[in-house]
Each structure stands twice: as C-alpha cells, then as structure tokens.
C-alpha cells in the first residue's frame, strides 16, 4: 500500500492549488466590492470631482474589473505584485520586510506554544477527570476568554511600566543578541501563545480521549498497560491527524489575525499593513496581503493533511 501515499500527497497539493485559484478570484472581487473609492480617499479632504476623475484614469481604475483581474493575475505569475496606489512603491518592497517580521513572530510563537499546548493537552487527557485536568481546562478557557488587548495591555503595564524589565514597544531592529531578542519578543510571543494555545490544548485533549474510547485501546488497558504508556504508544499515533488539523488551524491565526498584538506593541507586521491598505483602499496591497494569508493557510492545512495521510496506519 506504500505506493498510495505519494499519489495521495500529490492529490492534496493539487487541491491546494485549486483552492488558491478560487481564493485569488474571491479576494480580487471582494476587494473591488469595498465601498469607497481609492482616488477619493487618496485625495482626502481635497477631492474635487476633476481631481478624482484625473486620478482614476491615471490609476486605470476605470478599466473593467475583469481586465484588471487578468492584469493582476498575469503580474502574479511574473512575480510582479504590482505597485501600491497609496505611495507608488512596489508592493513587493512594502511587503518583504513586514512579512519577514510576521514570520519571525509566528515562528517564535510556534516554537513556544506548540510543545506547551500539546504537553498540556495530552497530559490532561492522560489524567482525565482529575483535578489536574480540571485546572488545565478552566485555565485554558479562562485565558482565551480574556480579550487579547487586555492581556497585552496588562503585560505592558506590569512588565514595562511598573517593573521596567521589558520595553513597552517591540523594537525589532534592536535585536542583536539573545537578550535583545527576548526583550523585543517576550511579551508579543506570550500574548499570542495565550491566544493560540487554547484551541490546541482543547482539541488534542479531545482527540486523545476519543481514541482512548476505541476498543483496541481498551484492550490494551485490560492487558494492564500503564496509563502514560497507553496514551503515548496506543492513543497518540491515532490522534495525530485531528491534532495536526487543530495545530494548523491555530497557527493560521498567526499570519493575518495578529492585528491587535501588532497594534499594541507597534510591531511592524503584515496584518497592520493590510489594515492600513484597507483604509486607504490600496487594492494591489490588500490583494497581495490576502493572497499571502491564503497561501500560508493552505500550506498549513495541506501539511496537516499530509501528516494525517502519513500517520494513518491503514495507509502506511
């Protein structure tokens, strides 16, 4: 059966490509539906009808949407993301630095949150219905139920304003040592860990418990296997697929969803770039950002699907 695995993986990749195409179409037309006109917004309080008309023509805003879509998608294939309406800088230039920042923050948060969340989730399942399990559950829901901006602001007040251990803003360009890295990233990473860990904890716990209920695991229990051994050797491999899905869904938040953390720590990432782009109706920039988010999301869920395929004993 080994031969099925490569074809399944290939299938998943093809499906990802199809989705990407649908998304590019959806993103383009969704952004053109946004109310408000780029030319009017760019001219701001100085927008006279003539000025708006002139700028619209100069920016090719009067071309049919389909034509602009073809130009745009053609540009994407040539690696040309277009030029920002708002400040006439190539979109690629605007995005590259910000994307690197976002990936750095996402990477560090992943390194911290995934091991932590999986450990908590799996151990909670191991000792299900014990005090430990209850504490983990209440703490998890308690933490995610506090709005992110409260967590972030509270962290700033405690660690930056009162204790003065860390800077209130994340000065990423001052990172030249491990201590510098810690100073710049500690609070954003902890805040984001609070946000994304909960889903992973809850779902890995649920998935492990689900597999613990299956007859063959019960068989192992009857044979006298210890609880940790039961979970790690028998239940975990079968729960890998839902866990991978939960991890992928949680991590996808780290690309486009971190707007609040970026705002509060003044972290120059891509989510803030996109919000700026939405408020200036900078369509090339919005579309490129949205495509990056989609691309990241598809990489994550495709990876999760592939993990699921590889971990499925019936396919191995």
């Amino acid at each position, binding site marked *: 059966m080994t031969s099925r695995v490569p074809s399944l993986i290939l299938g998943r990749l093809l499906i990802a490509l*199809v*989705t990407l195409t*649908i*998304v590019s179409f*959806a*993103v383009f037309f*969704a*952004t053109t*539906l*946004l*109310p408000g006109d780029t030319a009017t917004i760019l001219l701001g309080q100085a927008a006279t009808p003539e000025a708006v008309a002139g700028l619209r023509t100069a920016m090719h805003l009067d071309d049919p949407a389909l034509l602009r879509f073809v130009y745009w998608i053609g540009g994407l294939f040539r690696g040309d993301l277009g030029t920002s309406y708002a400040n006439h800088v190539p979109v690629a230039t605007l995005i590259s630095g910000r994307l690197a920042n976002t990936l750095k923050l996402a990477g560090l948060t992943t390194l911290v949150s995934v091991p932590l969340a999986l450990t908590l989730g799996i151990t909670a399942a191991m000792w299900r219905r014990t005090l430990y399990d*209850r504490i983990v*559950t*209440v703490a998890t*829901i*308690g933490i*995610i*139920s*506090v*709005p*992110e*901006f*409260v967590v972030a*602001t*509270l962290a700033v*007040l405690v660690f930056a*304003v009162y204790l003065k251990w860390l800077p209130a803003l994340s000065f990423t360009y001052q990172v030249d040592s491990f201590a510098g890295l810690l100073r710049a990233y500690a609070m954003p990473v902890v805040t984001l860990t609070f946000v994304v860990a*909960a*889903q992973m904890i*809850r*779902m890995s716990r*649920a998935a492990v418990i*689900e*597999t613990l*209920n*299956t*007859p063959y695991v*019960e068989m192992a229990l009857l044979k006298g296997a210890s609880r940790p051994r039961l979970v790690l050797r028998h239940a975990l491999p*079968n729960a890998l*697929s*839902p866990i991978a*899905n939960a991890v992928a*869904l949680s991590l*996808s*938040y780290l*690309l*486009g*969803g971190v*707007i*609040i953390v970026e705002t509060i720590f003044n972290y120059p990432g891509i*989510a803030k770039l*996109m*919000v700026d782009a*939405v408020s200036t109706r900078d369509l090339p920039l919005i579309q490129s950002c*949205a495509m990056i*988010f*989609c691309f990241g*999301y*598809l990489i994550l*869920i495709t990876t999760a699907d592939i993990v699921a395929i590889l971990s499925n004993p019936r396919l191995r």
Partner: protein
Amino acid sequence: MKTHSSTGTLAARSGYRINPVGVASFSVVLFWALVALVAPYITPHSVGEMIDADYFGPMRPGLWLGSDYLGRDMLSRLILGARYTVGISLAAVFIACFTGVVLGMASAVLRGPVDMVLSRLLDALNSIPSKLFGLMVVAAVGSSIPVLILTLALIYVPGAYRFSRALAVNIETMDFIMVARIRGEKLPYLIASEILPNIIGPVLADLGLRFVFIVLLLSGLSFLGLGVQPPYADWGALVRENIGGLPFAAPAVIMPSLAIATLTISVNLLIDNLPQKIRDRSAS
C-alpha cells in the same frame, strides 16, 4: 471513532448522573440568560446617563460596579451588555455550528462533486483572516445586528464544517450506514439519525470553543470601531472603551472581563459535564 460497537465501555458506567460542576456551570449560564432577558427592567440607571462627575469611579452604594470613562453606571451597562454578548454570540454560534455541521455531514455522505465544491469554497472562505473579513463585510453592508450575527456565523462556518466532516467521514465508512443506505434511507435521515448521534460529543465541545471565539471576535470588531450601536455596548466593547482604567484597576474594565470569563468558562464546563447520555449517545 465512537460506534455502536463500543457498548459496555468506560463511558457506559455513568448514566444521567448529576455532576456538581455541571450544575454550577448551568446555573451561571442560566443566570446570564435571565439577566439578558429581563435586562431593561432591572437596570438601576439609564445606560447612557452620566451620573458620576468622576470617571472610572470605585464601587460604592448606588454605583455598585463603579462608573465608566464618562461617569456612567457600570452595573446598568453590564446588565444591558449581557443582551448583546449572550444574544448575539449564542445566535451566531448556533447558526455557524448548525450550518457547518449539516453541510459537513452532507458532504461526507454525498461525497463526489458536492464534497469537492463545498470543501474548496469553505477552505477559501476560511483562508481570509476573520477580522479582516468582518471588516470588509460590515464596511460593505453596515453594522446592524443581523449583519453582525450573520458575519460572525459565516466566519465560523468553515471551521465547524471541516471538523464535523472529518468526524462524519469516519462514521460514514461504518457498516450500519451501509445498511441504512441499502434500506433506501434518504440524506436527512442518514445525517440526523445515523451520523449525528455518533459525533455529537466532539461537535458540542467544538461548539463551546467556538462560542468563546465568537464572544471575543465580537469585541475584536468593537476594537476596530464596529459593533453594537451606542449607548449600548457588548461586554467586549465595555472592556475596550474602559481599557484606560486598567492602570487603576478600575471596576469598569475588570467587571466586564470577569463577566466574559464566567460566561465562557461556564458554557465550556457545562458542555464537558453534560450527562453522559446526552454527550455520548453512542454509549447507550
């Protein structure tokens, strides 16, 4: 993975056992639901009335939860906020989960082109970041309460769909579904009577988590300047507008945070501690 074949497992030992944690969390949820229902009759002051000359005032008789950033009565604002947070979030989570789960099960049963098209479309929808999607929709259609509910629901449909489809696909391969199919049962019967009872536990757990996300996204949308119309405010918006009181530990910011926490924790504990017969129909 739960099937009819797992009769006599660990889960079967508990029947409709009344669980104190479940009762306690049910009481909290019921309390907030009642507060939401009778809110207009029990507020001591009008929500918009500025009665305190000071702002971020402390708790004291007459102003039991202190005053907010404009000197308005926090207790009244919190009571009326319950309407929005409980009402909008519950409506949105039920629409999202109902739609997502029904579509997910239908996809699993029908397979083929229906599954393919639905899966791709919902994946595409899900890959647009939720806050930005919300911003776009609400900016395009305005910020009325039905639009808000539908937007929140739409954002969480793909997740519920992906999760329930994955569960249903496992069930769908079981023998008893095959038998039902041979009997000539139609799609509604298959999903309602054969598949749903076998995935209800995880689906409910997912619903609980999604409820938390919706309560928070509602406040996230308020953060971006959208949401319920003044002078009313949902709990998340109350936290946000009074965040300036955090350095003083003002009740104006702590109380709505606590309200959110009690509601969301209770909903999830309630789901975790539902009587086993409801949670695991398969175990009967």
